[in-house]
Each structure stands twice: as structure tokens, then as C-alpha cells.
């Protein structure tokens, strides 16, 4: 039984995978959810059955959940708060000047 961390020490289930589905050609893959599977091939098949049986996808990615590097809660301050007072980073911040009439 895995003793990797506290959360899965009682977990006898298969490894967890994150599923990303691409809704249409040219669209980005989006996180659809997660599932358990013994390996990559079965993760793909399970993803197809769980997340793509209602025509949601044209392509699927599966990624072992433990391979995802996520920012931590305590990072939130330094990571995201500085964006609070910088509305000028949005294009909407700027008013677009009216087109000046061309003089003939």
C-alpha cells in the first residue's frame, strides 16, 4: 500500500488520472474531470466511456494526476494578488479613440 502521502495511505484504488477533452478540432483541450485506471491505455478507454460518450470530444488527453504540478494555497498572495490593482493589463482598460474624420 502506498505511503506516499497522508491522503492516499488508505487508498486501494487504481492511480488517479486527469482527463482533458478537446471539444472540436482547433479548440484547446479542457479539463473534464478525473478517473481511476490501472494504466494509460485503460485510462484512455475509461475517459472515452466516462467523459466522451455524449459527443463531448474529438480528442482526449489523460495525465497521471501526480504528474501535475500545481501552485499551492500559500502561493496565492504572491502569485495572484499583485494582479488586483493592475486593471491596465486588460485591453478594456483603454478607451479606444474615435476615428478622426479624415480631412479631404
Amino acid at each position, binding site marked *: 500500500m502506498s505511503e506516499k502521502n497522508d491522503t492516499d495511505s488508505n487508498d486501494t*484504488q487504481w492511480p488517479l488520472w486527469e482527463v482533458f477533452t478537446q471539444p472540436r478540432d482547433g479548440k484547446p483541450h479542457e479539463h473534464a474531470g478525473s*478517473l*481511476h485506471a490501472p494504466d494509460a491505455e*485503460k485510462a484512455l478507454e475509461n475517459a472515452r466511456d*466516462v467523459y466522451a460518450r455524449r459527443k463531448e470530444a474529438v480528442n482526449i488527453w489523460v495525465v497521471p494526476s501526480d504528474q501535475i504540478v500545481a501552485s499551492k494555497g500559500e502561493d496565492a498572495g504572491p502569485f495572484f494578488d499583485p494582479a488586483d490593482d493592475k486593471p491596465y493589463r486588460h485591453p478594456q482598460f483603454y478607451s479606444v479613440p474615435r476615428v478622426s474624420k479624415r480631412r479631404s
Partner: protein
Amino acid sequence: MSTATKELTKQEALFEYLVRLADDRLILGHRLSEWCGHGPILEEDIALANIALDYIGHAANLYEYAVEIEGEGRHRDDLVYFRNDPEYKNLKLVELPKGDFGYTIARQFLFSSYSYYLYQLLSNVEDEQFCGMVEKHFKEVKYHLRHSREWVLRLGDGTEESHERIQDAFDDIWTYVGELFHQDDIDEVLQNEGLAADTVSFKSDWKDLVSDTLNEATLDVPDWDQFMVEGSRQGLHTEHLGHLLAEMQHLRRSYPDADWE
């Protein structure tokens, strides 16, 4: 089987052929649906229920076409709910109880691999409607094969227990696979018209696929020449079919005019 019965018309043969195909899929779909809520894990529960629904969908299409060919105004439900076991022409293979997960997977693999080759041929029959239907189903059949084959590899080459269980399953089921390749006058009449698949033509390919998969899964291939049961297409069944039909049909027979509304 050429008996002294009157000549079969093409229409009668096609009706019977479609019903045989449909019966196989309906009964297996029903068996597989018994896993719903009992799958070994959530994801597999959903996968098996999906496949069960695929089969029932294929059967529904086939029955619908069968009653259309018959032209006597029957509804597909008449075939499903109001025939008794001797009138069902499905293979015994598909009516066997679902057993454990290994048993279900072993049967799924044998049936899906057989269907894979069968549908390859059926998608070329000289009947546009039949062809179109088969082509649509074929995509799902390919997935069924992939799903079950990958499981055979994992269970066979998995733990000691999974290996033993799926080996037992194949040994048990083996006697029912001979029938997959039986053909009779129905097949003969239709093959002459380009309306049916000659199953014997892919028998060795199918055996190779099964043997290769079992070998890869570190399983023993049972004896191809052992005793094989027969008679399903004539309506001879195991005792299991009657119980399945009782469960499937009793509501409809108790309330023949019941409606979803």
C-alpha cells in the same frame, strides 16, 4: 441442414438471419446490463453499461429491419417480448450467466473478436439499408474488441488470481465457440445473394487473433478440437435463457398495453 422442407425464399431467409443477429446482441446486451451497479469499479461499471446499450441498440435496429422485411406489420417489440426460448435463435455463448468479471471479459473478447470479422464482411452485403446499419455498428464493435482485448491481457498477465480466473473462464466457455461458425440453409440462400457473411472464411483469422491474444496474456489456448455444443440456431438453449427471458419479458407480458406516457 437440408431437410425436406419447402424452398426458403430470400425474404424468409433474410428475416431469419436478421433475427439471429439481433437475438445474439439483445441477449448479450441483457446479460451485460446485469453488471450495472455491480461493476468492479465505477469506470468499468459505466463501460460495461455503455457496451450493453450498444448491443441493445444494434439489436433494436436489426429487429426493426427484420419486421420491415417480413412485412406483416409486426413491431420489433413483438419479437423481443412475445417469443419463448425455443423461438430465440441466439448462440448459447451469449446466454450463459455473467459469472465473475473474468468470465464476462472472456466472453466479451470471444464474441467481440468474432463480431469484428463478421461485421467486416457484413459491411459489404448487397443491401444498402443493411450495409448502412452494419457500418454504423461496426465502429462500436471495434471499440468492444479493444476494450475486451486489453482486459484479457491485463487479467491474464495480472495477478495469480486474475490469471487463474480468466483461464478458468476460457476453459469453461470454450465448448460454446464452435457454434460461431455453423452455417445452414439460411446462410446458404443469402450467401448466394450476397446478403450474408461466410463465417468460415474468417475462422482461421479469428483463431489466430484469439490464440495470439491468449498467448500474449500468458494464458493457455484451450483445445480447438474439443467437444463443441450446437443447436442454438435451431432454438436449442441452455436452461439459463428461460430465466433471462422471464425477467426481461414478464413486465411487458403482464401489462401488454403498458405505455411510457
